[in-house]
């Protein structure tokens, strides 16, 4: 259990790839530098998509939280 407080949460559970990553990118697009966005996704593809994109875009993936039936990704906008 992480104690990171997100500024925004995107619930992309149920969305097929690449929906969750696009939802995260859309939220980061609107966020301010330093904001933390939490993405909820239940597709395994996000476990590779999200870290790859965060690195490419220079944003920091602070944590991945494994929950019962989905994962929560905490990304801080650079």
């Amino acid at each position: 259990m992480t104690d990171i407080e997100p500024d925004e949460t995107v619930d992309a559970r149920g969305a097929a790839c690449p929906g969750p990553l696009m939802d995260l990118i859309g939220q980061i697009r609107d966020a301010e530098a330093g904001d933390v966005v939490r993405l909820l996704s239940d597709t395994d593809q996000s476990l590779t998509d999200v870290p790859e994109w965060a690195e490419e875009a220079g944003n920091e993936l602070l944590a991945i939280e494994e929950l019962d039936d989905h994962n929560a990704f905490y990304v801080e906008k650079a």
Partner: protein
Amino acid sequence: MTEHVVIVGGGTGGTVLANDLADRLDPELDAGDVRITLVNDGPDHVYKPVWLYVPFGQREPDDGRRPLDELVGDAVDLRIDRVTEIDTEAQRLQFDGTAPSVGYDYLVLATGSTLEPEQIPGLADGGHDYYSESGSTALRDELLGFTEGHLVLSVISSPHMCPAAPLEFVFMADDWFRERGLRDEVDITYTYPIQRVHGNPQIAEWARPIMDERDIEAETFFNAEAVDPDSETLVSMEGTELDYDLLVTIPPHGGIDLIEEAGLGDDGWVDVDKHTLEAEAAENVYALGDTADTGVPNAGSVAHYQAGVVGQRLASEIRGRPATATYDGKTLCFIETGMHAASFVEFDYENQPSPAPPSEKLHWSKLAYNESYWLTARGLL
């Protein structure tokens, strides 16, 4: 008591559904037990796939436009008006101006996608598109005289209408410049928001080698942040800067505000059960086509197949029978791979696409379907 079915949106999904329902419910319509109203905010039905060919001077926007009253059967009440409010509790719709509100027993939302270029600074001024009539003709004016320089096709975000069309455009442009002996003078770059060249992994895996073979540069993980029309540059959120001489984009898409205002879903897309297409947040409301947030491509074939499912379900409900028809994710697309060849894919929720080898026969099949589309709109094909 007369059951009133209201369909909002006269695109592919709404028009096919109106005709499908009128056919299925012919006895009930004759007896006055059912009314079907199709609401559209303009008098014409627009077949958008025509726009892909407009920039190359091969089709005219009018080829994709016909009056709705010529396509929809007489048993359907056609109302040219704009819905301004959806009240799913009272099951009523409000219209523009002072027209009285209208009640419904069943509501189908087929309002489709709208373009939102204003989301990206500079895009409206610096970018061209072929996802609108005006965009396709403005692009034609530039493309027909374009003989050298850097052509950039940028997919700004996803989902967007017709996911195959960006690939089709660069494949067609490559072939078109080659045939005219201009390809050495024109560089082509294709950008896509995620780490591959298409949202669907199988289609991306098929398309990437074709792009490499034909010297179409691909920039992946490219999410456009801003366009500078003066310096003719496009900058991504990932920090890549591209110079262009002609910028063609797939602008950001959104649904209509009414849907979010009615509490039916975010960004104008209705949250639905992806099999029954029933709205999750309201009773007696369906959505189809781009409007239904199912995760399948925003494609005309999807709206067409979903209309058949919603038609069957509504007919069952109106007749007091259990509704059993479900949508299985069926999607069908032709993909132009040049000016004289095309591929074809068919897939659903369970089965992945396997693009067919490009052939002239498939290209002509696509063009033939585009002509016969008007039979689909009438509910005949």
